[in-house]
């Protein structure tokens, strides 16, 4: 730096230094101390048993045994070490690497699991069952968040995922009952979801109504409409209208016997297999094809896409419609796989959790899939822990999925970047 004039002898104020944020070191430190006190020193005396395979599986593996208190202390020390590393990096003026909070979260959840299981009446849990059940509960979330990915990538915020799930669930139950065919029900659910989405598309793209407001209104509308039809049509004549044919579980021979992986990947309904296909297709479509390049261009910089002859609003309309169809299929899972009939509000807010999964998954189909699995895990943990009888109050357990959501979305893994034009209507000129 060169200055042509000499600096004036005026006293300068104290100079403060800039350091990286303390957010990560402090939160890791506090959490690891909590783990040390509760999971370690106040930890249960029993030993937690984690079963890896079920009796009668093709390969039986021994269960993992972890003493409640000793295991708690060991895991807490591991957590403290990670927190200390984070503080050390901070003191050197560096930021914590991204893997650190993730690794911390995994170990913390495992310590929590050991603490809860060892303190339960029946200190034994099937790890394989826990994970397989998580996948089952995650399926609607995955479809919902894929819908969100498709809509936001093209520049439309889809708050109406909840309505699309609910519409899909209702239509699937009704049609599968009337036609006695679950597959027709599945298709009808997709159509219902697409219909809800088209309303969102028309109002937000053509009439430029605020997308959040249209989405919220649609959720309320679908909830009211399905509730009304349930009360007036389904409930009075359950046999005729609300005993849908089921989507059978189709295990793939041999492969489904592999411990842990088998039940997750190879023991699903058609919709379950469809989920894996959908994640792969949406990912390849978005990032490897002409269609995807245009979709992302429209979501990032619609005016640029327009100047290259891409029809922005048509692209948006059809993508949002497709997203609705996918969410509709997700809704069908409730009535055709998980539960055997439709009830009011059967989706129970999972559309909003799917929205969170999409953000946590950083607008990426695979990220959204993994985030959905995490939330599915939280749902499943809640129900399994209720069964083995933990000392933790059931109300607290019921909060678990939502707590996980808040912490996940509040950015434990850092800030993420949405498509630049998401939520902004495109008007020429």
């Amino acid at each position, binding site marked *: 730096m060169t200055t*042509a*004039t000499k600096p004036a002898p005026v006293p300068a104020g104290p100079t403060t230094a*800039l350091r990286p944020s303390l957010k990560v070191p402090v939160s890791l430190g506090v959490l690891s101390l909590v783990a040390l006190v509760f999971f370690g020193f106040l930890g249960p005396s029993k030993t937690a048993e984690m079963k890896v395979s079920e009796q009668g599986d093709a390969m039986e593996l021994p269960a993992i045994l972890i003493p409640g208190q000793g295991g708690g202390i060991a895991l807490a020390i591991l957590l403290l070490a990670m927190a200390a590393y984070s503080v050390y990096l901070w003191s050197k003026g560096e930021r914590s690497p991204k893997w650190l909070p993730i690794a911390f979260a995994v170990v913390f959840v495992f310590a929590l699991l050991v603490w809860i299981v060892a303190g339960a009446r029946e200190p034994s849990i099937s790890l394989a069952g826990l994970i397989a059940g998580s996948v089952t509960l995650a399926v609607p979330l995955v479809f919902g968040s894929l819908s969100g990915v498709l809509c936001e990538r093209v520049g439309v915020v889809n708050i109406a995922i909840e309505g699309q799930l609910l519409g899909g669930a209702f239509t699937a139950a009704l049609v599968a009952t009337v036609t006695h065919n679950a597959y027709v029900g599945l298709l009808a659910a997709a159509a219902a979801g697409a219909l809800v989405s088209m309303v969102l598309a028309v109002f937000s793209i053509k009439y430029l109504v605020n997308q959040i407001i249209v989405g919220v209104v649609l959720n309320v509308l679908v909830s009211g409409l399905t509730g009304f039809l349930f009360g007036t049509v389904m409930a009075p004549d359950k046999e005729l209208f609300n005993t849908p044919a089921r989507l059978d579980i189709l295990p793939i021979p041999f492969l489904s016997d592999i411990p842990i992986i088998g039940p997750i990947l190879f023991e699903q309904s058609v919709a379950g297999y469809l989920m894996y296909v959908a994640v792969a297709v949406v990912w390849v479509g978005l990032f490897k094809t002409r269609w995807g390049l245009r979709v992302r261009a429209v979501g990032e*910089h619609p005016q*640029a896409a327009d*100047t290259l*002859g891409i029809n922005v609003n048509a692209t948006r309309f059809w993508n949002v419609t497709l997203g609705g169809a996918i969410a509709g299929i997700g809704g069908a899972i409730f009535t055709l796989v998980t539960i055997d009939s439709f009830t009011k509000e059967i989706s129970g807010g999972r559309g909003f959790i799917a929205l969170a999964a999409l953000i946590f998954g950083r607008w990426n189909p695979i990220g959204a899939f993994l985030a959905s699995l995490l939330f599915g895990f939280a749902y499943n943990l809640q129900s399994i822990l209720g069964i083995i009888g933990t000392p933790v109050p059931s109300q607290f357990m019921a909060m678990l999925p939502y707590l996980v959501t808040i912490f996940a979305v509040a950015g434990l893994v850092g800030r993420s970047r949405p498509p630049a034009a998401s939520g902004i209507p495109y008007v*020429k000129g």
Partner: protein
Amino acid sequence: MGVVKLELKGISKAFGSFYANQDIDLVVESGQIHCLLGENGAGKSTLMNVLYGLYEPTAGRILVDGKPMNFRGPGDAMAAGIGMVHQHFMLIPVFTVAENVALGAEPTSPGGILNLEKTRKEIREISERYGFDVDPDALVEDLPVGVQQRVEIIKALVRNAKVLILDEPTAVLTPQETDELLDIMRQLKAAGTSIVFISHKLREVKAVSDVITVIRRGKVVGDAPPTASPTELASMMVGRPVSLSLNKAAAQPGETTFVVRDLTVRAANGTNVVDGISFEIAKGEILAVAGVQGNGQTELTEAILGVQEHVAGSVMLDGKELLGLPVKEVLRSGVGFVPEDRTHDGLVGPFSVAENLVLDLYDQAPFARGVSMSPAKVSGNAEAKIKEFDIRTPSAGSAAGTLSGGNQQKVVMARELSRPLRLFIASQPTRGVDVGSIEFLHRRIIAERDAGTPVMIVSTELDEVAELADRIAVLYKGKLVGIVPAGTPRDTLGLMMAGVGPEGGSNDN
């Protein structure tokens, strides 16, 4: 398809009752650089958007090689051999160069899978032919603005553009990058491409044009040869004689009262957008901060005002530390501040001119007593200021947002100069302001200097810097490249704006 002749006949474009273009005739001969000269808001960009198929003309015809065209969208215009480089680049920042170039005409393998190998090859070919030095696999957001502009030109050339429209292409470039662009334009012309060059900068227009068409308020004023004098051209743009130089008196610097030391501002992404800047300004002196847009000027002025978070260092005014004080305290210390974006930060558009003139003093005597405001005092103040600053407004009660850019800026300037000041900061004081108002605003700034206030001007226009500055500070990537006296040659300033210090050596890191 060989060379193309482009004709616009009687083009009009209306937005509601307002005519942005009225009955415009324009002929672009093949292989020429045809300049459209006009002030901001004269209707140049609207005309080009009509030509590019983005707007449908209200009346008139477009002919390519004598054949009438009906462009329903940019796709049709591109098919007819017209390419456009927009003032705000139409590039997707998170895509690679190849993806941006391919978008809209993507080569694919069977099944719609992208295959960008052909595009990469084309980019490398064009890049080599014109010496662009563009990597097809670089992310656009990582590229300097000048290179992004080349990507835009490549986009048009890959689509076989025979007529290339460049809309204010030099607004974001350093003087050196501008010279390189002018060279590229000459090369393209030699290769048979016609160019429509839109600009309001006389120097560049004269340097490169074959024909100049001047547009004012949506109408063609006339053609001029590139040999016309700058004063002549400026008079055609404005519609009345203008003087292009101020002939200000030399500065009489007094005591140094404003001192900035090691000022650092950290952005959300962790980089220092202002990096250890130190300078001082004496009473009765104008320091102009020059630099290409986005090199920390905005953050520097905002840090002094106190609206930036994550700031370190020291800002002393009259021996008092300003850093860390609330904005209101900073203003009370006698800082007048004209922000660079007046419509967002300088005015409340829907508020009246009179209200905007007291935005900083509304809660103080004489405009307020206790909890009540005194409307009579507010409008009395407005009448006086409207007269003093020659603000052209229907009335003091008109919404400020409805005024022209120049008059909005006069409102902001009138408000900020109405208090006794200890420091005056004006960021881009004449951006988007008509030539007539520029002269007036410049005279007011110099009057404030002569009244003994330290003045800091931030401008990306070297002409403005040269006009006003007593000393010139140049910023590059948040660092101070150096402070040089007024009258430093343009070439030296241009190099400094690219990070090369006044005594040689690069500050790039």
